């Protein structure tokens, strides 16, 4: 059976599969990794490394995109 880890995404708690990359996490959330920016524990995760960074228990993510604004 898969192990899960506990993380926060945009302020909301969530459990996800252990060992997944940040890119896999984005895809699982239905997001296109090339259209978002990810901050992990207050550090930017460069888009080129989204596939290399593993989601760890206790991680806090902010995932943002561009929206209409003035």
């Amino acid at each position, binding site marked *: 059976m898969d192990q899960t880890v506990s993380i926060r995404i945009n302020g909301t708690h969530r459990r996800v599969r252990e060992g997944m990359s940040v890119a896999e996490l984005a895809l699982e959330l239905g997001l296109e990794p090339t259209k*978002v*920016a990810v901050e992990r524990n207050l550090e*930017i995760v460069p*888009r080129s490394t989204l596939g290399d960074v593993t989601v760890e228990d206790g991680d806090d993510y902010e*995932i*943002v*995109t*561009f929206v209409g*604004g*003035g």
Partner: protein
Amino acid sequence: MADTWSVAGRTFTSRLIVGTGKYKNFEQNAAALEASGAEIVTVAVRRVNVSDPGQPLLTDFIDPKKTVYLPNTAGCFTAEEAIRTLRLAREAGGWDLVKLEVLGEAKTLYPDMRETLKATEVLVKEGFKPMVYCVDDPIAAKQLEEAGAVAIMPLGAPIGSGLGIQNRVTIRLIVEGAKVPVLVDAGVGTASDAAVAMELGCDGVLMNTAIAEAKDPIRMARAMRLAVESGRLAYLAGRMGQRRYADPSSPLAGLI
């Protein structure tokens, strides 16, 4: 020769920058952009909707390859928040031309110049090219320029107020003192306000609400395009002097 302007090494023909907030929908926003002729749009950086990721995105309607996205820090009240937002924006878009605004209070949305200056310094060190929203104060404008702001963007009046340029004298002083482009940002309500900004010698005007909250935003977008162009032409043409009394346009000689 084409009348262009440049910021941070990029050259533009349109002197109108438009926001992408407050529109009825993305279609109307895209149509207004088209009518405005703007080459740059401001955008906000916000959390993705994780519970409903299928929602349409701004980028589906306004192509970032054709229109320059200028990420904005609207809604940030500290230097730290603004810097964090722009780091994410740079990662999301891959560009370092950004618009910095650090607000002081919700009631007036006046910029907090102490935090704005602090954020400008940090961003410039990190390689950003910040266009900076500021008060209409020639000294503050100078300080921002010295800190590395690539454009100075004084308010004409509070954000979203539509009151027009409240202090033409200070806007003109900023224009005369700046070596970087000066764009009036905020306060424009109708076409004549945009023309005034351009007649004062500004390099451009940024607006959102004046177009988005017009009864017909697409028609207003076109009006703003024409106003910015005519204000610019009038500035380049050099207006006539003002007199206290009348001066007849027809010759006095030969009157019957």
